[in-house]
């Protein structure tokens, strides 16, 4: 089942991922520019758009980071063209700076900012409710509940943006972005890709002190236009037949509420108000509803965002109803909502009982058998080799020098280096943060400090930190785990690959040149699989005062596998010589490759998984691992 967005005709009903539906909505709206930086759960939006960019004649790109993606989209909007940028929730933090000022000037062509939040941290370092950014910067936030609505809202967001001359935020969550559903296709508007002239208006766009102040008054005034839009939006379903209790909900939480009511089937009628534009709330309509009811339960995914805003609206009423939700402890707060948690909230509220299934006790017994399953590096992953070396250095330094090496992690596959058996990683925050934190620790401690970063993250956010380390005289080692691709999010190109999102060859930006340009004197590039040399160079760097950089470079195993398949080649794989193997288990317990396992009497290498990196052979103290065949 391929991503068929652009191909399907008006009126077709096809199954789509929420993210594909967002892409389709943008294509239907005649988008002319799309940009993103990869990040789960948003990556598929730009991937889908890039796949259809040639057919529908628009430009799609993986930008170096979200901030640049937004700034470029803003430039496109100023030419009165339509632009969309998409990111995981963390990306919003990057665009906050340019967004904060650019809303004062406003937009020309429709500009849609898609944020895919990740409640429950399925693939993120934090939970963050980006609806607050709408309130923070005074721009509307739309929140779809399913793929169909994701498509409709994306399409409408462009129109809305153009009517109010401001960017519009579309807030998805993992369970919308990564859910599939049947979607009815709409008509595709194709806008011509043309050269246009920039129309000057510095009073609006060249934002200096006094102009910024006057434009802030414009933005405040513009809220009236937004309120009017919201009151009449078809995405807000406020129909409600005078019940005394209402469930106030939006987005994915709405689908849980509907399922919960279906299962609970309460005798007392309960109203459901579904909000599509979650910021600002349609205050006039909402007041009319609140006047008639006694009790409101706010069910929303993320923080109690609507709950707070609803309480502010209710405070203007003579007799406000009781408003319950996450703030009052009536709805699960933290992690993600589930149908089960919503059933619990509603049944508590209505004093209903909902029996659990009779097999749940036996299931709990069965669950006691399950060993935990952690994610692992792939067989043939260059990071496994690097972490084996780092782990060895850590142990040796502790033993011989009685010294702890402090390791700063970063965002990417190599975040998994903190798992057994390597256990490398003391601190990990956000994109590129490792180097900066390393500088702080190096400044006031005598530890050897190693910051780790991948190639994708280095290009995204790494080099300002590196520049600062050189400029301010830090004493640390930066190990760049360069697998020459953005692997964690599914093989997107980086500036180092010489390829764009649209599959066009481009300049290859070599990280060595950036590093040297930052003034780094100690720079070594090592093949990740040459573990002896990698260890030497890292230990060497400890002797060098100042900033040292060691690049551990070899291709991502998934990418290698694809390249081998394409070329019709098979890797030279390894096997264990039973006669020589002393079963010390070093290959299993210190190196830990998914292709290596232990059976009753021997160690086995799964030849269907082995990619022939040969690191296990180098690790083996008994010379018991040899090339097969």
């Amino acid at each position: 089942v391929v991503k068929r967005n652009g191909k399907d005709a008006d009126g077709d009903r096809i199954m789509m991922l929420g993210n594909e539906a967002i892409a389709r909505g943008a294509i239907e709206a005649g988008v002319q520019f799309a940009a993103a930086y990869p990040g789960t759960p948003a990556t598929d939006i730009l991937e889908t758009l890039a796949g259809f960019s040639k057919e529908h004649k628009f430009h799609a790109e993986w930008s170096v980071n979200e901030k640049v993606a937004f700034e470029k989209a803003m430039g496109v909007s100023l030419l009165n063209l339509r632009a969309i940028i998409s990111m995981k929730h963390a990306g919003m933090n990057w665009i906050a700076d340019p967004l904060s000022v650019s809303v004062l000037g406003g937009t020309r062509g429709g500009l849609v900012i898609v944020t895919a939040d990740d409640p429950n941290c399925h693939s993120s370092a934090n939970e963050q409710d980006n609806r607050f950014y709408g309130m923070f910067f005074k721009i509307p936030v739309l929140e779809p509940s399913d793929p169909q609505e994701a498509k409709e809202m994306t399409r409408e967001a462009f129109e809305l943006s153009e009517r109010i001359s401001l960017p519009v935020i579309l807030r998805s969550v993992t369970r919308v972005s990564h859910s599939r559903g049947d979607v009815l296709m709409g008509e595709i508007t194709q806008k011509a890709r043309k050269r246009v002239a920039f129309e000057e208006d510095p009073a609006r766009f060249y934002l200096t002190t006094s102009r910024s102040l006057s434009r802030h008054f414009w933005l405040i005034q513009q809220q009236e236009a937004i309120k009017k839009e919201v009151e009449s939006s078809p995405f807000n379903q406020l129909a409600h037949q005078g019940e005394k209790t209402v469930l106030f909900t939006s987005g994915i939480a709405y689908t849980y509420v509907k399922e919960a009511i279906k299962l609970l089937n309460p005798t007392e009628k309960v109203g459901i108000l579904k909000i599509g534009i979650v910021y600002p709330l349609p205050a006039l309509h909402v007041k009319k509803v609140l006047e008639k009811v006694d009790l409101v339960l706010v069910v929303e995914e993320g923080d109690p965002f609507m709950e707070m805003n609803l309480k502010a609206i209710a405070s203007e009423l003579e007799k406000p109803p009781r408003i319950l939700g996450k703030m009052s402890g009536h709805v699960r707060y933290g992690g993600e909502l589930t149908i089960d948690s919503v059933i619990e909230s509603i049944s508590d509220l209505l004093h209903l009982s909902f029996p659990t299934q009779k097999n749940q006790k036996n299931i709990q017994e069965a669950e006691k058998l399950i060993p935990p399953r952690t994610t692992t590096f792939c067989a043939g992953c260059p990071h496994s080799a690097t972490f084996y070396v780092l782990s060895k250095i850590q142990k040796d330094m502790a033993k011989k020098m009685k010294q702890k090496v402090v390791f700063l992690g970063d965002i990417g596959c190599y975040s998994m280096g903190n798992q057994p058996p390597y256990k490398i990683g003391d601190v990990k925050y956000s994109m590129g943060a490792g180097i900066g934190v390393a500088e702080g620790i190096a400044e006031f401690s005598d530890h050897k400090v190693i910051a780790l970063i991948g190639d994708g993250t280095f290009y995204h956010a790494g080099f300002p930190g590196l520049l600062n380390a050189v400029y301010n005289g830090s004493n640390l080692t930066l190990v760049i785990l360069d697998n020459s691709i953005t692997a964690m999010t599914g093989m997107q190109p980086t500036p180092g690959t010489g390829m764009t999102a649209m599959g066009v060859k481009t300049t290859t930006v070599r990280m060595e040149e950036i590093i040297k340009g930052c003034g780094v004197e100690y720079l070594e590039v090592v093949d990740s699989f040459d573990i002896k040399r990698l260890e030497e160079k890292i230990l060497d760097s400890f002797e060098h005062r100042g900033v040292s950089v060691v690049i551990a470079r070899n291709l991502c195993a998934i990418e290698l596998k694809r390249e081998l398949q394409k070329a019709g080649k098979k890797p030279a794989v390894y096997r264990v010589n039973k006669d020589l193997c002393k079963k010390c288990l070093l290959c299993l317990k210190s190196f830990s490759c998914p292709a290596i396992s232990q059976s009753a009497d021997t160690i086995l290498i799964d030849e269907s998984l082995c990619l022939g990196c040969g690191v296990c052979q180098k690790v083996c103290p008994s010379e018991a691992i040899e090339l097969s065949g």
Partner: protein
Amino acid sequence: MKKMNTEINIVASGTGGQGIILIAQILGMVGIKAGYRVRIGEIHGVSQRGGSVVSFIRMGEEIYSPTFPLGKADFMISLEPLEALRALKYMSPEGVVILNTRFVLPNTVKIGDYACPGLDQIIGAIKKTTREVVYLDATQEAMKNGSPLTMNMVLLGVLAGNKHFPIPLSAVKEALMEAIPKKSLEMNLNSFDAGVAFS
């Protein structure tokens, strides 16, 4: 097409890269062709690095959410025995579990930190919670048809052939033929048919 009561809920479980998403997509297409609302809930990202993967497949007249509550799955397709246990909480007492007996051992077992339960123990534990367990070495079966990668199609065949599964076999086969590129269709179809024969 047999008339469904209200909805069918299926949970598919396994580890990253085993082909759960394809099973979900084919079943979703089956639902759409039958004129039902379809919702599939899945998680991407970290789960691709050999982690646990679970997918929810739902079809029926009135479906809203991409997930379903605990204890509500009518069917489970599990591509790995330990992952069947992990997803068991979603199974209804009246449900059917279809299980590949081939283990993908977690790292925690390989390095000796945790013990792994035996297959009999797992099947016994599942039997106590649900109506029927159908198990086979689907990987072995798939290898007979040319590639262990079509193991997911063997299990899909077992599901489609199960007497409790309310959708005609032909509808599943039709969706499969549409979903899989011509190049690898024959191999996948053979594995599917092997699954049907086993059921």
